[in-house]
């Protein structure tokens, strides 16, 4: 997958789960402020991403630092690349 394909899959997965408007999902969009997500949504977001990409990220420390969509994009791309190298 290209980085752009990863980003599109992330955005479409989150849009479906949280009923978001794709047009309003820019990299700078904040999860808690702009999208109105909360702690329960954050847990479910991890499950959605695990299902979309087939990896386990729940115990990753870096998840706690995620604030924007761009943070998610970069985290997932990094994780994907890391797993590809390991494989």
């Amino acid at each position: 997958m290209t980085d752009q394909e990863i980003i599109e899959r992330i955005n479409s997965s989150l849009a479906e789960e949280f009923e978001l408007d794709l047009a309003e999902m820019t990299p700078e969009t904040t999860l808690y402020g702009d999208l109105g997500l909360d702690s329960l949504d954050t847990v479910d977001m991890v499950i959605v991403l695990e299902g979309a990409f087939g990896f386990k990220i729940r115990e990753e420390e870096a998840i706690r630092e995620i604030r924007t969509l761009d943070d998610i994009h970069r985290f997932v791309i990094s994780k994907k690349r890391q797993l590809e190298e390991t494989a």
Partner: protein
Amino acid sequence: MSLKRVVITGAGSVSPFGRGSDTLMDALLAGRSAVRNIPDLERIGGLRSRVAALVPSIDPKEIPRKFRRSMSPMSIYATLACYDALAQAGLSPEECGSGLLGVSIGSTVGSTATTEEFFRDFFVDHSLERMKTTFFFQIMNHSCAANVAQALGVTGRILSPSAACSTGSHAVGYGYEMIAMGRQEQMLCGGADEFHPLTAATFDVMNAASVHFNDSPTRTPRPFDRERDGVVCAEGAGILLLESLDSALARRVPILAEVIGFATLSDPSSIANPDAGAMERCMQLALADAGIGADEVDYVNAHATATEQGDVAESEAIFRIFGDRVPVSSLKGHMGHTMAASGSIELLACVGMMLRSALVPTLNLQNVDPACSPLNYLRQAESGDVKVVIKNNFALGGVNSSIVLRSYPHD
């Protein structure tokens, strides 16, 4: 201790006929049936009943996602019905958080469909890694009450009675008692349920579900009819806003009816089979609570689900108290048995009958079963004053309940 008088100032319904109390009343008075053949039920081995009355497609997005994410369909039905009841009663969102308003809403169980969905995934690899945070909030026993309270910002008491087919009546009855005692000024009361094949199977396994009308669904259920063959399962929510008379008068809102009596009791003679004596006792207690005699009742809204034993026992109980004078009908013929919602949906239909001065007959009652007592069975709509109504619900588990309503104001 003096008790407060309790009135109804709002009603909301999501029934197999759709959303809205007027939608429900129009369908009932037009003699329409909401029972349909459900093709998906054919795929379930051993299930003989393939009819049900389901809520037609409704848009749940009026409920913000933040609140809707923890709701299964039954909570969505209950919340939409609450929106409508509050709107009719003129109670604003700000007033919901006054502490004066409480919630008394129950269901038979939490969401069976959500439970099934979870375990279907769990049994794949016995992993909990895919479990969403909102799972529990859909299966807990007080799911409807809690979800409604969250969505509306209610800060008063929460009660979630659960007594199968008596749930809706219990919710109203206990709400009535809470207001009468002065513990809350207003209560959103009612029941809600969503259809799952397990509900139909529960009755089918006891030979109490309708199985002979799968190809002619609108001809069943047939309360009191000699060709009746059992329950048709349904779903929905019925919500009544109960309020102290003092509160309603102070707010200067229209009063739809007054709740003047409630009784409930346990019938330990059987967990499944009804007993006419216990039904009679329940109605007598409700009349005593209302402080009226049987001669003052204008209409009996029967539980009558079209089971062989239930209809006979209830007819006998009604006959012992009211003889063949008082008009009697069951609304199950129109929309099946909405389970936990039946008490409150049918009660708000009784309010509708009082307001429209019209009585709804029993749909599909063509030939009264000779085993049933000789009541004044309504077989066509009647118009005229309806001032006092008694409404019955009798549940599996031996839980009987009766509620008495009176028009307001009354002579």
